[in-house]
């Protein structure tokens, strides 16, 4: 039996809607709304103007900041606007709108053929940076930053995060079944760039077919494919590292402190495309699911396609949805509308029918301790909600390690009093940041 991490929860995984649906390619949108900020880090500045003609894969926004990710046109056509548009994460954001000319032409020079074996670490990282690859597990952290190992640290292992522990989502699952070559190549490239020989693939054991497929694909590569107990948040990188290597990433530290780099399945595939063919990140596989969707699907979709288009491709709504979520139900964001572009980090779009998503009515904490037992980070979530409610955010940070919370939502899931702990955590973090900023 696999070692497990402490805490965690077992929500109903609801993956059967789409687990057996092969990835379908969504039609090109009439116009793509491409925000200049699709990642953690500095926003990019547009380098095209209204009226310019762009081709697929053309760089349209960039920046010198290291922690950032280039933005490329996902379709070819005319730039019809550069302005503020709704954004699934930031509310509104500067976006470049490209009107489809229907030609879907690549920009000059790609696709190309490149033998990755010949490349050294720096050139691989350069390619990844130029391709605008960011983490596709949802956090959208620029991958080239992650791959750049500082001098004083040494990477020892690479972990492919294929846990896909969020309920409903099956995009990674389908990719592993259908596109194992891309994934394997991506992992090999990453391992070469990092200079490591040890690799792991962690997959939750509710996807036996994927474990099978990966084992086959990775046979003889020295990469260990491991079936992990199904338990949310198995895919959180600290948990994954703990389970696979037995090491605990120190509080506030990065995986590299224990010599590990973690990347998502989609990220690995994107690395493969970029390095072997020179393709920038302009599309992704995402899961459209939920009871309010007529035909839930896994779709390959261009960045900038609106939620509405994607949902229409899945037959539209079966009933009036009560809630729209970008990402999974545990960590995803509820969205106020479906006029939003799909960006690099949108791993799923869920339309929840009435009663499907359930947040309950908050009552006072009865100190039952379930949240303590569920918290994978070993925190005391009940205190976050209580202290947050009374405005004692400093105490939450200092005495209860609030900043260690990864907002996984396990505590909220199990709470019988339906406490909005994650919201209190966000609240406390925001207040604490504001206070710090004011202090400076």
């Amino acid at each position: 039996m696999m070692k497990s991490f402490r805490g965690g929860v077992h929500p109903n995984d609801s993956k059967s809607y789409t687990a057996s649906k092969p990835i379908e390619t969504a039609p090109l949108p009439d116009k793509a709304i491409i925000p200049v900020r699709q990642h953690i880090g500095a926003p990019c500045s547009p380098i095209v103007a209204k009226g310019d003609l762009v081709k697929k894969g053309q760089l349209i926004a960039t920046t010198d900041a290291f922690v950032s990710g280039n933005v490329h046109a996902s379709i070819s056509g005319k730039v019809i606007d550069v302005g503020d548009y709704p954004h699934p994460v930031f509310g509104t954001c500067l976006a470049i709108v490209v009107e489809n000319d229907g030609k879907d032409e690549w920009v000059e020079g790609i696709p190309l053929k490149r033998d990755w074996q010949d490349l050294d670490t720096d050139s691989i990282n350069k390619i990844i940076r130029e391709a605008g690859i960011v983490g596709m597990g949802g956090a959208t952290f620029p991958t080239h930053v992650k791959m750049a190992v500082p001098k004083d640290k040494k990477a020892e292992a690479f972990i492919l995060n294929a846990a896909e522990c969020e309920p409903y989502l099956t995009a990674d699952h389908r990719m592993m079944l259908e596109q194992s070559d891309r994934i394997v190549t991506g992992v090999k490239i990453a391992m070469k760039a990092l200079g490591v020989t040890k690799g792991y693939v962690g997959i939750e054991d509710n996807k036996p077919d994927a474990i099978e497929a990966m084992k086959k694909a990775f046979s003889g590569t020295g990469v260990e494919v491991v079936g992990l107990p199904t338990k949310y948040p198995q895919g959180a990188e600290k948990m994954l590292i703990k389970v696979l290597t037995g090491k605990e990433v120190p509080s506030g530290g990065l995986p590299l402190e224990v010599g590990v780099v973690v990347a998502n399945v989609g990220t690995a595939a994107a690395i493969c495309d970029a390095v072997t063919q020179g393709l920038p990140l302009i599309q992704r596989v995402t899961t459209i699911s939920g009871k309010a969707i007529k035909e839930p699907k896994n779709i390959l979709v261009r960045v900038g396609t609106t939620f509405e288009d994607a949902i229409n491709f899945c037959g539209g709504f079966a009933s009036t949805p009560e809630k729209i979520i970008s990402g999974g139900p545990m960590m995803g964001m509820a969205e106020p509308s479906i006029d939003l572009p799909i960006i690099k980090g949108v791993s799923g779009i869920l339309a929840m029918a009435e009663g499907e998503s359930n947040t309950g009515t908050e009552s006072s904490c009865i100190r039952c301790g379930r949240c303590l037992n569920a918290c994978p980070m070993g925190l005391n979530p009940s205190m976050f909600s209580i202290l947050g409610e009374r405005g004692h955010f400093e105490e939450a940070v200092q005495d209860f390690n609030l900043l260690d919370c990864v907002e996984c939502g396990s505590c909220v899931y199990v709470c019988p009093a339906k406490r909005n702990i994650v919201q209190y955590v966000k609240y406390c973090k925001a207040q604490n940041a504001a206070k710090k900023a004011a202090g400076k």
Partner: protein
Amino acid sequence: MEYFTLFMGAVVVNNFVLTKFLGLCIFFGVSKNLSASAGMGIAVTAVMVMSSALAWLIYNFILLPFGLTFMTTAVFVLLIASFVQLLEMVIKKYSPALYNMWGIYLLLIATNCIVLSIPLINVESSYGFLYSLVNAVGSGLGFALAIVLMASCREKLRLADVPKPLEGIGIAFIIAGMLALSFLGFSGMIG
């Protein structure tokens, strides 16, 4: 064994705060947070032991031989007040850190029932010198225990939705009532 019984009796069974109502001003005034109340508990114990010793000497060598027992109160209170003030000055001078921690409570101690009553009880019950000291230590620790428990409860209730009028001292009294109720469990255990 006799000393042990006396000591345990003073700490829990006949806890001065919860069964004899002494030292309530500080008990309610300084129990808002845990570290302050722990400091206070120690301070009270220290002052009580030292003044008990002095008081015992004065009583047995001056007041008793000259038949001046009716003046005990006046002399003791003067003794304690001066002693506390002296202590305050010494601490302020030599350990400002300590002073910042519980200097402010020292003056409160000077006008606190429990500090005066222990020496009084000691001499009234004609306890011996050592016995008096043990009684003082036990009572002081009993006070410390009670105030620390009180503070931990109040720290918890600070985050609770206590009815407005009861907030602060009111709810503290109610907790004290429940502490006293719980401590009845010890009744009959010793003495």
